[in-house]
């Protein structure tokens, strides 16, 4: 009899894992719709999608690092760096769209290479190494900007800044194609691309092999270090893309703008573990996790929950997501 009860419990938690996140999203939408008549509007949903797109891209980067068995904590600061990079190109150096995109992307790749260097070459633990890199990057952007934001017509030595946020750049974060925000399409393209890459290509599967058992992967002839390097570079790259969208959305280069995104991104990736009940990092799960967090934060804001109190909710969600992934891991062994 006792055995039956145990089995039943396992099965329920399995279903919670599989459909719980989707149910939670629907439940949240229902609750927020009932309690606030401004929630279920086009304007608000377009807002949600815009903020989700930024968090989800950072979370996508984190997911890549998690898949290979690493952990990239520097994505928030990389996004900030990209924001500053884009803003500085546009406002301080009066560059056109192409440069304003290439500079932050190059910075993102550079951070990825740096993370790869400390974790693979120096063999430092991923969590601590990327934490240290996070501080270094924060310091670099603060030093470069002397702690000030970069905005249109800002005063500089001998007058005002020569450039400005050009419309083509602002379109990325603010424009729409028909009724659909451009960022939503961008986000979908990256997620579908990443999903197809990881599921259907040889190199993509190698990411999972490395994360599952690096030694066995090595002995199967997989270039383990190169795969880990790719993962960190992709992580930096996606964080930079998130940073570009952020800069374009707010129209300024704010120092440390990406810092609060880190926890959201990590939580999204871990909620992703649970979505399909696999207990492992996966791209589609991460997207759903990011949407869940986006809806929740938007609804809380509409309830006038102050932003500092929202951190309590975020932290709690992360603990819940970690707990769920831990339970699933235990069930599989």
């Amino acid at each position, binding site marked *: 009899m*006792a*055995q039956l009860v*145990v089995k039943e419990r396992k099965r329920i938690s399995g279903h919670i894992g599989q459909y719980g996140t989707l149910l939670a999203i629907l439940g949240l939408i229902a609750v927020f719709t009932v309690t606030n008549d401004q929630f279920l509007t086009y304007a608000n949903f377009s807002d949600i999608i815009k903020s989700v797109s930024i968090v989800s891209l950072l979370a996508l980067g984190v997911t890549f690092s998690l898949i290979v068995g690493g952990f990239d904590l520097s994505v928030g600061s990389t996004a900030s760096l990209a924001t500053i990079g884009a803003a500085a190109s546009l406002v301080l150096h009066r560059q056109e769209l192409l440069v304003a995109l290439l500079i932050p992307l190059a910075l993102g790749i550079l951070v990825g290479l740096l993370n790869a260097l400390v974790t693979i070459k120096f063999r430092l633990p991923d969590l601590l190494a990327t934490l240290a890199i996070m501080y270094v990057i924060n310091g670099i952007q603060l030093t470069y900007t002397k702690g000030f934001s970069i905005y249109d017509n800002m005063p500089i030595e001998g007058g005002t800044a020569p450039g400005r946020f050009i419309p083509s750049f602002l379109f990325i974060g603010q424009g729409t194609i028909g009724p659909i925000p451009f960022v939503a399409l961008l986000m979908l393209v990256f997620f579908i691309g990443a999903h197809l890459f990881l599921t259907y290509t*040889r190199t993509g*599967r190698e990411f*999972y*092999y490395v994360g*599952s*058992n690096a*030694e*066995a*992967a*090595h*002995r*199967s*002839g*997989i*270039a383990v270090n190169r795969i880990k390097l790719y993962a960190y570079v992709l992580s930096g790259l996606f964080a930079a893309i998130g940073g570009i969208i952020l800069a374009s959305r707010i129209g300024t280069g704010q120092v440390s703008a990406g810092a609060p995104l880190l926890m959201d991104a990590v939580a999204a990736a871990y909620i992703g573990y649970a979505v399909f009940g696999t207990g*492992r990092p996966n791209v589609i799960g991460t997207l759903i996790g990011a949407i869940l967090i986006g809806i929740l934060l938007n609804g809380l804001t509409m309830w006038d929950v102050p932003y500092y109190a929202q951190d309590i909710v975020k932290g709690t969600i992360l603990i819940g997501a970690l707990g769920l992934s831990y339970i699933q891991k235990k069930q*599989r*062994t």
Partner: protein
Amino acid sequence: MIRLERITKQYGDVTVLDQLSFSLKPGDIHGLLGLNGAGKSTLIKLLNGTAEPTSGELSIDGKSIRLTPAEAIRHGIITVSQEVDDALYLDLPVYENVLPWQTVKRIRPQRLKERAKRVLSRVGLEVDPTRPAGHFPLSVKQRLLIARALESDAKYLLLDEPTAALSETDADALLELLQKLAAEGVGIVLVTHRSNELTRVTSTSTFLRDGRVVYDGPYQLLSSEAVQTFLSGTTFDAALEKAVPEDKICLSAQLTLPAFQSEISIEAYRGEVLGIGGLTGSGKTELMEALFGLSGIRQSITIDGKEHVIKEPTDAVREGFALVPEERRRHGLFLDETIERNVIAVAGKATRVSDVLASLRVRYANVKQPVRELSGGNQQKVVFSKWLLEDRDIYLLDEPTKGIDIAAKQDVYERVIALAKQGKTVLFTSSERHELERVANRILWLDRGQLAEKGGA
């Protein structure tokens, strides 16, 4: 006495143990036999409380009981698992490893070391109790676990294949220790595949097949044919038709083994099974790893008359090598992945997966099943399958039959010989000479990283 009566254990729809009765008496050494998947591990789990029976009764000294892991330890039921490293604190000193923390009231290192020394001498160990446990070889680590069991007042010891990875001398010494403990009144379950051990030390034995008891009584009464019949339901032909090597050298290498600071040169013909024998620690694994680019230095290897430099496994794979590593769980498998994902890890394409699995007679429900659900022998075959999807020229099989049952061994032998008949070169290591004699065309014997002898089989 521990007694199981009409115990059934199901996982989902699969019945692993079926109406099984079993009893373990104090002072007995009780042999437990069965092929992989017969239910031995599950029986051990029921005895140590890590699994609960679906139905049936478990009693200790006549009292019916529901065992949890903590409850089992309270009754003095201690397990020495096959994976000793999982049970030890490798970076902590020996004395902290052998003294169960529950029994330590006050931490006074000097006293604890004295106490540790006493129990270490009971298991025949004279080691410095302040050295980290990870420094010692497997044979010592096992004794550390037995010492820990004694310190927690073990009345029953469950040993899952303790001798599988030991050299003959170490295995003998361990059996002697077990006999001594049994004489002190400890009841012991000994899982092993080795018949000489069963003959020597067990007072009674239980054979499992497909979750049922097929024989319960003294092992010594059974003929070897009877043993095989009880285990598998059939008997195996002793002789295999060996491959005939071509008169063409395929592989020739002058290797450096850094671990032994030795040089070794080997040659193998196309279509040959080259047996490489030696005890644990003789350098078999190091030799295989050197060929596969895992020795950490550049090795120059001649394949079909062309010289190649190999310094990384990626180089070896490119030149047509395949390695089935000795430690399959740590080095060969992606345990979280499905069978299919494991098989295609090298070739990358998902065609012919079920054909390859069938050619090794892998028993599985579904290729999408996680590989961790398979029994040890079937897991080993999956590691092997990884290299069969794509044509390889040279197969390096490091102890491919270690810890798997005779039926699975037979499947591996047949596949190995079939590969050689296709013109592949196979290097096959084993610590058991008779096994090499069955499959190999020639046998090299290794000792401390050097060739000890050559000869045909």
